[in-house]
């Protein structure tokens, strides 16, 4: 039981991190129709910037500076490239961000090399805060949780309660109307893109040292974030939140389940040892953990193509 609480806790921390990225991605998508393929690359940039800053000043300044830098880069990318490529249609936009993701990965290799960089948890937070049933809970994980939750309360407050938030909400569904009311819609797009990528950068700052900071980190997380927003339903923040936690928990707890489908079916008298793909069924759930999010996505696509809370088809 104590073990389950531990895995659940880790799943929630990971899920909140996923939501930090998927919220920005889904906001950008529903506003501009741009699926930002390079979103996870901004996460990676956040981690690398924070590492570079931490070598000079320690961890804390990086927590603010790195996301702001990443957000500025994101805003510049929107202003000078995405807006240009927008004329050529959505496929070109998607391909541009795809190329950008590749380029950022190569640039990171160019500057910091192929090997992981020693970006570590700050010593102030590197201790076990409390114990439940012999499992120790690290203070840094609690800190990660606190940062993400603060971020969401703040984000929710901005979108739901402020004037700029209302304009953003209006621009989501009726960009032309907002434009005729005298608001600078392209600038709102640029700000949202900057904020979304900045949020991904923040996720990188707090996630980079909890996991590993290396050039492959964007690719590893990028597709999971896509899965999250498909499962949650495109354009839905609440959907993205539920899907993030769900996938975070699925991925971390699956590692702890030590039975296979063959075992499960054997208890009800079905023998799966000689049916097609028997190799797959005989694997323990813990071994197939990496493919579970994708299987979950396929299931959602078959049963509910618009996602858990999605309201529109494309």
């Amino acid at each position, binding site marked *: 039981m104590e073990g389950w609480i531990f895995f659940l806790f880790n799943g929630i921390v990971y899920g909140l991190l996923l939501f930090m990225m998927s919220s920005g991605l889904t906001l950008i998508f529903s506003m501009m129709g741009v699926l930002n393929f390079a979103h996870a690359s901004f996460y990676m940039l956040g981690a690398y910037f924070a590492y570079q800053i931490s070598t000079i000043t320690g961890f804390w300044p990086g927590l603010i500076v790195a996301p702001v830098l990443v957000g500025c880069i994101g805003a510049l990318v929107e202003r000078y490239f995405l807006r240009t490529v927008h004329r050529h249609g959505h496929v070109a936009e998607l391909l541009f961000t795809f190329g950008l993701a590749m380029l950022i990965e190569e640039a990171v290799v160019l500057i910091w090399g192929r090997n992981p960089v020693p970006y570590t948890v700050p010593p102030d937070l590197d201790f076990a805060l409390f114990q439940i049933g012999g499992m120790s809970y690290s203070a840094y994980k609690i800190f990660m949780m606190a940062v993400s939750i603060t971020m969401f309360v703040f984000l929710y407050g901005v979108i739901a309660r402020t004037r700029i938030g209302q304009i953003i909400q209006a621009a989501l569904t009726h960009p032309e109307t907002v434009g005729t009311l005298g608001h600078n819609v392209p600038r709102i797009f640029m700000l949202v893109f900057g904020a979304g990528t900045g949020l991904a950068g923040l996720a990188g700052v707090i996630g980079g040292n909890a996991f590993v900071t290396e050039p492959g980190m964007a690719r590893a997380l990028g597709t999971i974030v896509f899965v999250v927003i*498909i499962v949650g339903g495109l354009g839905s923040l609440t959907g993205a939140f539920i899907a993030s936690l769900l996938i975070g928990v699925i991925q971390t707890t699956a590692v702890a389940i030590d039975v296979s489908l063959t075992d499960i079916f054997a208890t009800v008298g079905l023998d799966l040892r000689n049916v097609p793909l028997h190799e797959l069924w005989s694997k323990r759930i813990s071994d197939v953990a990496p493919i579970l999010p994708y299987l979950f*996505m396929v299931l959602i696509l078959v049963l509910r193509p618009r996602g858990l809370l999605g309201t529109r088809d494309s």
Partner: protein
Amino acid sequence: MIPGNRFLPLMLVAATIVILALLPHLFNSRYALTLLNQLGIGIVFALSYNMLLGQSGLLSFGHAVYFGLGGFTALHALNAITDGDLPLPVPLLPIVGGLMGLAVGIILGWVSTRRSGTIFAMISLGFAELVAASSNIMRGYFGGEEGISGDRMSGPVLFNLSMGPQRDVYYVIAAWMVISALLMYLITQTPLGRMANAVRDNPLRVAFVGYNPQTVRFLMFAISGFFAGIAGSLFAINFEIITAQAVGIEYSANVLMMAYIGGTGYFLGPVLGAIIYTALSIVLSAYTEAWMFYLGVFFIIVVLYAPNGVSGVLAVHEPVLRARLMHRLLPAYGLALVTAATLLAGAVVVIESSYHLSQPGALTATMNLAGIEFDADGWRPWAFGLGALALGALLLRETIHRVGHAWADVRHHLTGDAAT
């Protein structure tokens, strides 16, 4: 192409076959044959990809799934041939791999072609990751780290091809390339091919005409999987080994870039793209570690400034050539080329120097670029590189204006000709 000439396509095909038959006699080194074989595989793969992107408007990030699974099936079949369990000549293996590509295309296409546009692209990526992650788990089928290997010199002999020498493999690949390309071209001429174009341009109107856009997308998707499977089988025959990399995102990205760089708007665009991309990656990777970076920059430049690819750029110049107005463009092009070269030289120095410094294996800062030795941590290369970069960028803005003026002039002449 001159309209009304019905024999021109046939003559083109005949000429292609003659050239393909002569090529290994002209370039008979091992290196040349290896390159030609890879080109052939790339061409079939890129053409199959363009059935989705160019003809049906479906942007897939997971086309290597059908390529790779076709290749794995072909190698498993090859091993069955070697063991005497399957009486099939090796040159016919692509049929087996193609059928596997078709089967997987039917299963995955059934789910993914319900949607189009951006959602389809994301789903294709999800499937690609699903298969790539499965390859780590199903070690029996994918062979784990070592992959699956086989011996192509086995089974019944067809057309006197022992399949030992590279040249035999070349002929098999060339034959399959011609057959596949012809079939894919003919599909574009069928009602299905035409409806695919219509679905790409306006699915709603297709639905009003009485066709189901979803069915059209599904059929094109499955057929494209078949040809990708053929390409994968040719890969398996050529290398006699296949690893899980072949279903991975890198192969999917490669074929996407091939097709897009070549241009998706013309049937032969991806062929051009496969040639350019394969040649560039082979040449660049021989000289520099940063070759992926250069390819990425090239790809982004195509996306930003030439969305119809290289074939699109060529096609724009066709009427200019025919009106013999090329001389009006060339001076501006020459200037642009010089400034672009300056920019490129600066960028190369900066990129190579920083790459050199970031590699853990670099013991000294001394490096060699195009025969010139210098210290990557000194100020000289950076001053030169950044200087050339800035100068090139400044001048390029100016020369691009000139190219614009030259084009306005040519367009004026072209429309003037049409009016008289």
